[in-house]
């Protein structure tokens, strides 16, 4: 029996290793549904999932929508540009209006860290954080762990290198939390201007060059430079960035011969990753996307139970 004590999924930080394993195990079961002739089970029939996205997204929004539909929930998508916030309504007002229509789960993405936690306090529905500013992106970390576990058979004891713009990356934060809880050794690397002050406190080994992070790594996670999250330039230009921090065939040789290469997307080909690597045999980037649907099904299943689970 699966006991799950959380009503909201706001971040990985508050989950235990056991919670993570529960979600990963369930995700593996849900993965099978994608291979059925009818890719749908009736589990969440009659439940309503609202995808409230105040930031652009194709992958995550589509993934949550497909996950909800494969569980027979009704999924409604609201994007920031189409919402009343452009008319001056606050986030909480928008969410409370939606909540008044009795959805069971609200999946929220917002540019502000803490947006999901704020909504969780103010609405009755379960809140699933689909990315809040540079804070957390828990389902991405879960699907990353699911991908690693599928390819490596385990997470504990692996060396995982996360490279690029660490400061502005909610994926990096959630990944560090999840990977550390599951027992991996996490190394982060990036230009000093893109390395946050507290990365070491989260349990990651911090490097200002990419080579020591890649040395003997089992898993490499490349991150995009999130230019939209900073005003003044934090590195000279993309060509120089690519020369020092881009993943290419030569740098990949420093990793273990069976290392896998991951990227949460969107990918900037030729900047943080050489197209030959992105399309090469070591890349599992599209597998991450496939597993994302199964992980989000597991999350909606576990968090869609309302008060029965609390």
């Amino acid at each position, binding site marked *: *029996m*699966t006991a799950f004590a959380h009503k909201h999924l706001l971040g990985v930080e508050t989950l235990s290793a056991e919670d993570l394993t529960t979600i990963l195990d369930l995700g593996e079961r849900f993965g*099978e549904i994608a291979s*059925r002739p*009818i890719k749908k*089970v009736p*589990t969440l029939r009659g439940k309503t999932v609202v995808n409230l996205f105040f930031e652009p997204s194709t992958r995550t929004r589509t993934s949550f929508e497909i996950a909800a539909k494969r569980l027979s929930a009704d999924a409604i998508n609201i994007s920031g540009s189409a919402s009343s916030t452009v008319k001056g309504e606050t986030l909480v007002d928008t969410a409370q209006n939606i909540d008044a229509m009795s959805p069971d789960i609200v999946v929220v993405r917002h540019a502000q860290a803490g947006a999901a936690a704020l909504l969780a306090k103010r609405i009755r529905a379960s809140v699933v954080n689909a990315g809040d500013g540079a804070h957390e992106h828990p389902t991405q970390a879960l699907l990353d762990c699911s991908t690693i576990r599928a390819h490596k058979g385990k997470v504990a004891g692996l060396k995982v290198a996360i490279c690029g713009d660490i400061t502005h990356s909610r994926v990096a934060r959630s990944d560090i939390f999840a990977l550390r809880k599951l027992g991996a050794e996490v190394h982060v690397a990036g230009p000093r201007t893109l390395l946050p002050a507290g990365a070491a406190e989260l349990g990651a080994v911090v490097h200002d060059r990419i080579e020591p992070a890649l040395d003997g790594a089992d898993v490499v996670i490349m991150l995009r430079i999130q230019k939209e999250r900073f005003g003044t330039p934090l590195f000279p230009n993309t060509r120089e960035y690519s020369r020092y921090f881009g993943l290419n065939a030569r740098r990949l040789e420093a990793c273990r011969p069976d290392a896998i290469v991951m990227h949460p997307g969107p990918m900037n080909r030729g900047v943080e990753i050489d197209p030959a690597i992105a399309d090469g045999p070591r890349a599992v980037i599209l597998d991450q996307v496939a597993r994302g649907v199964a992980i989000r099904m597991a999350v909606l*299943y576990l968090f869609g*139970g309302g008060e*029965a689970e609390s």
Partner: protein
Amino acid sequence: MPRLPPPDADLIERREILDAAGMARVLKRMAYELVERVGHEGDAIYLVGVRTGGAYLAARLAELIRASGDTPRPTLGAVDISLYRDDVFRGLPKPEIGPTELPEPIEGRMVVLVDDVLYTGRTIRAAMDVLGDYGRPRAVKLAVLVDRGRRELPIQPDFVGAAVQTTAGESVRVLLKERGEPDRVVLRERRPS
């Protein structure tokens, strides 16, 4: 409200319905009946066990049918009904979800659902919904080791190992060697307080 099954600790054994020899005898008879009644209708019998108890019993029946050598080797599959239950969000702990494995298409086949205990019929209703998502069998039959009555849906078994009258407070437990227990079927009731 769904009926919460009483916790194991609150139950005491009242009588044994089947011992190991009895279970072996009953399964052998069921295998013969399966061969006789559906074993000669074209394709091999497709036994589909309902996880977890029914899946073990389906595997045993498949072996017995194969050993009889009287009919094509049966196909063996298993369904997990966790995602098709009608009480997923009614306060019960969420069950572990096992894989559904149907190694051959069920389209046009004679499918025999196998379960350990037939009670309300809700599990079988859910199992039929799972099958419906995989294709359209020619026919679906139901084989159960124990029919304990008290149905809540219009579902009846085609092959029955043992039928017993029970009350709602009682519990029928099938112990199987596949789970590391001696083969037995016992009727239990709530400990007098």
